[in-house]
């Protein structure tokens, strides 16, 4: 049975080549199957939405070619569908980003920006940091546990609120992923973190 969610690094960039040093470094770090390159945004978005059960870090280029949407529009499109993936904005010319574009990235929680022509030594640590942050998210930790359960069990009624609302484990996870939009999701996150603190307080650091 699946016990760990795979990491996927999804690169959406019309100029990326397979032998790019950053690609080689990422494949060494996370395995060849973990790195996916898409030259057009639609294919990249389609892949992301079909693989939401993976932990995904997206490297999104701002300039995707003359006849394509710009990176900020693609980012907005991804965010309209999911808040689960971590997005890093790439550009060869970061100072050229407009105030509106920057505001959109910040408001929709882009993880970072990287200069695409900076070397591996500069960019790889930023990507690794994004992966680590993803590993520390409560929803990802919970999802790993939920995936250990039988798929049928994940859909069964698991929890009843005093108000009578019933949630399955998968619905609990969805509430957590809604972040601040869900009072119940926030309550779960807080409860799970409190549980970790309780364990630490009892000298059981190996969670």
């Amino acid at each position, binding site marked *: 049975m699946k016990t760990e969610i795979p990491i996927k690094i999804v690169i959406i960039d019309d100029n990326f080549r397979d032998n790019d040093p950053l690609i080689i470094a990422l494949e060494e770090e996370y395995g060849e199957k973990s790195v996916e390159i898409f030259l057009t945004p639609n294919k990249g978005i389609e892949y992301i939405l079909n693989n939401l059960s993976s932990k995904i870090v997206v490297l999104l280029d701002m300039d995707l070619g003359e006849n394509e949407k710009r990176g900020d529009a693609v980012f907005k499109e991804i965010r309209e569908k999911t808040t689960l993936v971590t997005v890093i904005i790439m550009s060869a010319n970061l100072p050229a980003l407009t105030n509106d574009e920057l505001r959109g990235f910040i408001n929709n929680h882009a993880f970072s920006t990287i200069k695409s022509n900076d070397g591996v030594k500069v960019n790889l640590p930023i990507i690794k940091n994004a992966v680590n942050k993803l590993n520390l998210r409560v929803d990802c930790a*919970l999802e790993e*546990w939920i995936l250990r359960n039988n798929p049928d069990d994940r859909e*069964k*009624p*698991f*929890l*009843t*609120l*005093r108000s*009578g609302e*019933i949630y399955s*484990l998968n619905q*609990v996870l969805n509430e957590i992923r809604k972040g601040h939009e869900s009072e*119940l999701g926030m*309550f*779960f996150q*807080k*409860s*799970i973190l*409190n*549980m970790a603190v*309780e*364990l630490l307080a*009892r000298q*059981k650091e190996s969670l």
Partner: protein
Amino acid sequence: MARLLIAYDSADRHLGDYFLSCRHDICAHAEACNDFLIDELDSEHDDFQLEQYISTYAEQPFIFVAYAHGCSDAVLLSGTPLVHNRNTYFFGKSLFYTCACDAGISLSENLRAHNCYAFIGFTDKSNLQPRATDYVNVFMSCENYGLKLFMGGGVSIVESFEKMRTMYSDQAISLLSTNPVAASLLLANGNALYLDAQGQEHLTIADFQ
């Protein structure tokens, strides 16, 4: 003999079975203690019948337990207020023990203002119950643990409460490896537990006999 008055909303569509199980559990314990006179109010009863029962106690202290829904200023039976701000004065000389969510907020203040000895309840509106039978039993055991200790004798209300909180925490950690979500909820419920026994910290079951 100590008096025990139990209200339980067994007809509740979602949690009726759970409330009924809690009632069975505490009744079995009271019978095992062999020192309790038990009166009961199920979903068919209302606040008038509650007040009638208490009136027959003729000022004898009693323990009131409610397995029912609640809100900040009331405990409800079948969606209707059973204990509310207009009848809290009936609860002077009582220990008030309820799993109703939110009741620890203003209802407890009102009860204490009318000389209720002590209140144990929840301050959080999210007192949650898992559905799987195994976990329900764990939640029920925790919910009744403090009261059972107190009823067993020799333990003060404060000690009972503290041991109840520890029970929640211990059970949450035991549950962690099999179900971290249920474990987290159990701990959250334990953290939402609330005791108001100011001035009555040494209250024991002997004060009710």
